[in-house]
């Protein structure tokens, strides 16, 4: 009887530990949105980045096991960021950038969340097929480059002026 109690006790303890560790989608989202602290200052994703996370979680169900794994990996990333006192991916050392890229690759290979990160900080999250892009998240500014440079026209203008001058000079000399 004592042995049964002991076994039950161990089982309850084990389940307890598992329950403490298991993380739901909403807890994972909270962990992501809370970010981490560097030099006493919280580093958090922007409202727009949180909106991307929400959109993904609205579309795809991520299992507790996957959420738990991702949370563990996020802790590893946060530790790397804290070690470099980095407030964004671009502020990480090259070595730690590579480590974060590897961690994202590991998350992608071991969970249902398919993603990749480039060394210049573009996080691509894929649809469930692992190929089609769901979204691309960067630390860059919201406003993108939407201008026409007109370099070709400026060059064409310069060449035209130069050409006119050249032909005029030739005509004058003739």
């Amino acid at each position: 009887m004592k042995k049964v109690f002991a076994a039950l006790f161990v089982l309850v303890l084990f389940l307890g530990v598992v329950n403490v560790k298991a993380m739901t989608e909403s807890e994972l989202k909270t962990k992501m949105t809370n970010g981490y602290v560097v030099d006493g200052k919280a580093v958090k994703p922007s409202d727009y980045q949180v909106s991307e996370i929400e959109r993904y979680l609205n579309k795809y169900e991520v299992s507790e096991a996957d959420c738990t794994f991702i949370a563990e990996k996020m802790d590893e990333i946060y530790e790397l960021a804290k070690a470099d006192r980095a407030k964004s991916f671009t502020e990480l050392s090259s070595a730690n950038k590579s480590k974060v890229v590897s961690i994202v690759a590991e998350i992608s290979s071991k969970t249902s969340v398919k993603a990749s990160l480039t060394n210049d900080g573009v996080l691509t999250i894929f649809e469930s097929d692992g190929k089609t892009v769901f979204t691309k998240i960067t630390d860059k500014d919201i406003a993108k480059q939407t201008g026409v440079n007109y370099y070709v026209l400026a060059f064409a203008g310069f060449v035209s002026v130069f050409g006119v001058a050249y032909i005029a000079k030739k005509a004058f000399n003739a």
Partner: protein
Amino acid sequence: MHKKNKRNILKEITEQIVISFFFVSIIILIIHFVFIDKINNYINIVNMISIEEKDITYPEVKFDNVSKRLKDYPLWGKEFATLDIPSINVNLPVFQGDTLDIMRYGIGHYSGSLFPGEGGTIILAGHNDRGFLYHLPEIKVGDKITINAVYGTFTYEVESTRVIDAKDNDAFPFYKDKEVLMIYTCYPVNTIGHKTHRFLVYAKKVGESYEK
């Protein structure tokens, strides 16, 4: 004597190249200033036709009237709406995502922002070429903007416009409780080089219908 001939031939060739270059440049300038509107319109039409041939409808993108959210989302780089601003003669396809690649074909939707009808900030971006948002700085307060999405039609009215620094993220407040459409393009138009400013339009929602 032989050397002199060689030098003359080289001189002739150089002159021919310079003159050809000159005429090519003149042609480029003429094409730009005379035909650019027609060329851009043609490119837009070809883009719209080619996109239509691929797949323009997304039956999975439906609007949930209870949660006020989309049930699914347009795929990255795919067209899901058209942007219509009659006052400045704009009628362009809207794509999910705002990378340079995507914006070659029309208007880009910043994926962190919400979608029309979801009751929050919607951010759209487009190039400032003729045929895209070249005339955006001419828009007036009170002008109407319509987004015809695959799940509904939404009408907005311009409330204000601003010229902002490209790095001013605070110019794009994230609303979840009021629907504000923000459309921007590089500013000023028609200048050479990298643009450090954006012309930004804020418009409030004044009408909606979901009967698609």
